[in-house]
């Protein structure tokens, strides 16, 4: 789980935009989580499990590292 000073960031907002402004609710339905969880992930407040991360990448049909980035200290 992410901590304060999070190193994991993501491009979900941009990826949703390029998918015809897919809503958080649509993404949540396709991934199998709640809209609130998508919102928390997008805001870097919650780091999802590896399984959910892969499911998000699969929805956008991109590699995992295109969705999530791990920064340096």
């Amino acid at each position, binding site marked *: *789980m*992410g901590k304060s000073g999070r190193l994991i960031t993501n491009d979900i907002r941009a990826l949703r935009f390029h998918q015809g402004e897919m809503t958080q609710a649509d993404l949540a339905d396709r991934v*199998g*989580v*709640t*809209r*609130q*969880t998508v919102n*928390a992930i997008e*805001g870097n*407040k*919650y780091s*999802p*499990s590896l399984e*959910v991360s892969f499911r998000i990448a699969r929805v956008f049909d991109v590699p995992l590292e295109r969705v999530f980035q791990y920064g340096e200290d």
Partner: protein
Amino acid sequence: MNLSFQEKSLWLRFVSLVAVFGFYFVTALPAHARDVMPQQVVLFMLVVVMLVITQVVGHIVIAIADRHTETDERDRLIELKGTRNAAYVLATGVFLALGTALLTDGNFAFTHVLLGFWVLAHLVEIGSQLFLYRRGA
């Protein structure tokens, strides 16, 4: 404030616990004696029934208004963190209740210290979850 089903459910549990057990303690504690009196046992059973009815009816109303009742991994994580925090409070309460049992006559003080910490543990559990939902996780 846009609340999820889980947050509405937690607020319902929090408010009903405070109201019902607040009523119990305000009524029972001034009438303290050496031991728990039969009328206090009856009062306790009544407040438990009130709590169950309030929460069942409240959850039915919330579920009708908000059909997104499903949970996911983040909900389970938040629930686990809340339960962990509650366990610390309950463990503290158990030891304080044991100390109370050793230092006081009768069962009134022991019973109510234990019951008080049980209620407090639930409030900490729910409060922790509400905080985590507002923070994100």
